[in-house]
């Protein structure tokens, strides 16, 4: 077991190296590399000297030129970047002039909180839903439910977000929910529970947007894995023993279907970043998604590289965790 983990970890090293190389390549061949940074407010341009100094400044920061102003060779640039990354220096954002890590530390909790809430919701409603669909398989209910979940799964977030925002958060129609942000503007006069309630009120629509897709996906998984287990011999044995249907279902079938479902969550986590880009854009939330989006848009290269790198590492780790979960959960799976 330990050997397996060790081997997986060792295999991750070349993968990580390759990833850094790929990221480096994608970013380095961008035209107008040094014109990066959000220092240009829309519609304004700076004077000539200012621009030149700005470009030199960025070039130094990205290790394009050395301290003496001489250009550095491409492989050396990569090595320099790699070294500082390995040392934990992810660089300074060109747009915010602040360490990238600090920016991410500010934004990550925001995104993580409402994403976790949505994940929790997904599990809470998807598991009973999937069980129901599995029990009533083959009937009209199952078919209708299948179409319903497929439709939910196919609903584009941009449509749902726009409609929710347009119909439920616009004084023109119904003003039930706030249209932007995570807090009201007058939070300092609130007690803690008012504050919490206000937060929940604000995240209702974004969480709804994030939840329905995950729900549809998970319901399918629950149903599939339940059905798979229902066909197993041990279920037949249990039934033959004369156990009650519900007992068989819950104690035997569900219990065995549970673990694969939990391991799925490890796979869901990395995908949250992409989803939150759209949701945060629609609901004007300042989280990781918004940071990632604005960084790509204003070519804040250090931020782009760091976010992609962190996303990649999380994904790789989640693969590892998934595999490990399987080995622990299912003695039939062996890794040698």
């Amino acid at each position, binding site marked *: 077991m330990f050997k397996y983990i060790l081997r997986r970890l060792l*295999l991750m090293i*070349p*993968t990580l190296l*390759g*990833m850094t190389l*790929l*990221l480096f390549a*994608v*970013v380095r*061949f*961008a*035209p107008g590399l040094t014109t990066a940074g959000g220092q240009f407010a829309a519609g304004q341009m700076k004077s000539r000297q200012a621009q030149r100094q700005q470009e030199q400044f960025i070039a130094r920061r990205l290790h394009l030129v050395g301290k003496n102003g001489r250009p550095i060779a491409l492989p050396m640039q990569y090595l320099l970047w790699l070294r500082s990354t390995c040392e934990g220096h992810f660089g300074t954002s060109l747009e915010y002039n602040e360490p990238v890590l600090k920016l991410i530390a500010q934004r990550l909790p925001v995104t993580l909180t409402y994403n976790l809430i949505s994940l929790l919701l997904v599990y809470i409603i998807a598991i009973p839903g999937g069980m129901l669909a599995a029990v009533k*398989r*083959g009937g009209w209910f199952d078919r209708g439910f299948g*179409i319903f979940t*497929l*439709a939910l*799964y*196919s*609903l*584009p*977030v*941009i*449509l749902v977000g*726009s*409609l929710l*925002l*347009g*119909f439920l958060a*616009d004084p*023109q*129609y119904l003003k039930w929910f706030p*249209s*932007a942000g995570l807090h009201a503007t007058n939070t300092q006069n609130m007690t803690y529970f008012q504050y919490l309630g206000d937060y929940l009120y604000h995240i209702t629509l974004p969480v709804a947007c994030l939840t329905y897709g995950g729900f549809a996906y998970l319901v399918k998984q629950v149903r*599939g894995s339940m*059905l*798979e287990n229902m066909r197993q011999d041990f279920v037949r044995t249990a039934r033959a023993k004369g156990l009650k249907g519900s007992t068989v279902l819950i104690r035997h079938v569900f219990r065995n279907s549970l673990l694969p479902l939990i391991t799925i969550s490890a796979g869901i986590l*990395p*995908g949250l*970043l*992409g989803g939150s*880009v*759209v949701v945060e*854009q629609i609901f*004007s939330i300042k989280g990781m998604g918004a940071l*990632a*989006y604005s960084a*790509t*848009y204003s*070519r804040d290269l250090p931020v*782009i590289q760091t*976010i*992609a790198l962190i*996303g*990649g*590492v999380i*994904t*790789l780790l989640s*693969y590892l965790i998934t595999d490990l979960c399987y080995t622990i959960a299912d003695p039939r799976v062996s890794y040698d």
Partner: protein
Amino acid sequence: MTSQPQDVTDLAVPDRLVGPARSWWQIVMGRVLTPLLVRFAAVYILLVALTAVFVPFLANSRPYTIVINAQGGRPAVREFPLFRSLTRLDLILLALFAAAFLYSLVHWRTRRWRDLPRRRRVRWRWLGLLAALAVIASILIAILRHNVLDVRNYRRLVRQGRAGDAIFAPIRWGYAGMEPLRKNLINQRPSRAHWLGTDGDGRDVLSRLLWSCRIAMGVGFVSQLIALSIGLLFGSLTGYFSGLVDLLSMRFVEIVESIPTFFLILTFVAIYGRDIFMIMVIIGVTGWTGYARFIRAEFLRIRRLDYVAAAHAAGLPLWRILFRHMLPNGLTPVLVSASFGFAGAVSIEATLSFLGVGVPPPTPSWGNMLNAAGNPTTVFRWWQALPPGLLLFITVLAFNIIGESLRDALDPKLAVN
């Protein structure tokens, strides 16, 4: 003793089983297409695809034909403005469509042939011929055809009586045609002149809706073609060779997969531009890993089969073994993934356009139409938001339905009786 069975076999085998020979593929398709919903989805997709090809004939400000009245010494002339102003892309699409249509005719005519090898040979021959023709035609069109800029206001000509006998397309607006710049003409609600109203530039929403089918289908098709070819090449090589090649290339697949896809696409678009073809390529280049994994798994399985060993023993060249013998058998599961991939590409393009980094204006896309309707700097106009949103939703849904049923059909384990 009237009708005595003449042969024992007549009795034993019911009629439908002796019918024309059915390939495994036909059986699969039959199983897939049985449910009503799937048929609906297939018909819908076909309709959208047809719209994508024929949209110049459906929504255009130029009439099919018109007679310009005699004026100032010039005699009256009959003109065909719509046909004259078909663009290069329109013509190429029509050529490709014609080839596809002819091939499907061939396919249809040969469906009852019992001699399977001959049927396959004939079909391949026709496929090759038509594909070559289509490619040649496209190249010729691309070289010889110049796009015509015709912005004469034919509707006004007819209204003023300076032209007559005109036959217009069902929708008399192109995607970029605008009402005059007046406040009551932009952002109109649905009316008789504009069945779905107009947008912020005074353009007909319905016309733009139909024209966006082209973007959606084009992005889905081209990007998946790119993804499929990269995935096929990568997957088949990896699956066949295994060992070190496998190890290395799977690391590479893992690398590409581990970077959040949507973020990668955003970065690519921000860095390398947002031309529509660029977006197709980017979606294709970032979306091939699934195919590669599938094909690799299939090839690992097929490699051990006897007929591959036999092909080896016969001394066939490698590419022939890979692509003629192994690939066709490993292809079917990929179709499932292609169907989902198509849906994904359509929705990624819409999302990019929604975020304002998709296709450049004035090209319509369901995403940028949705954005224009619900932009926070304007008021929400549901009559502009709903049609593109619903069309996008139904398209994605249709592809998912087909993918789902394909998977059910191919996976006997999941086929619940």
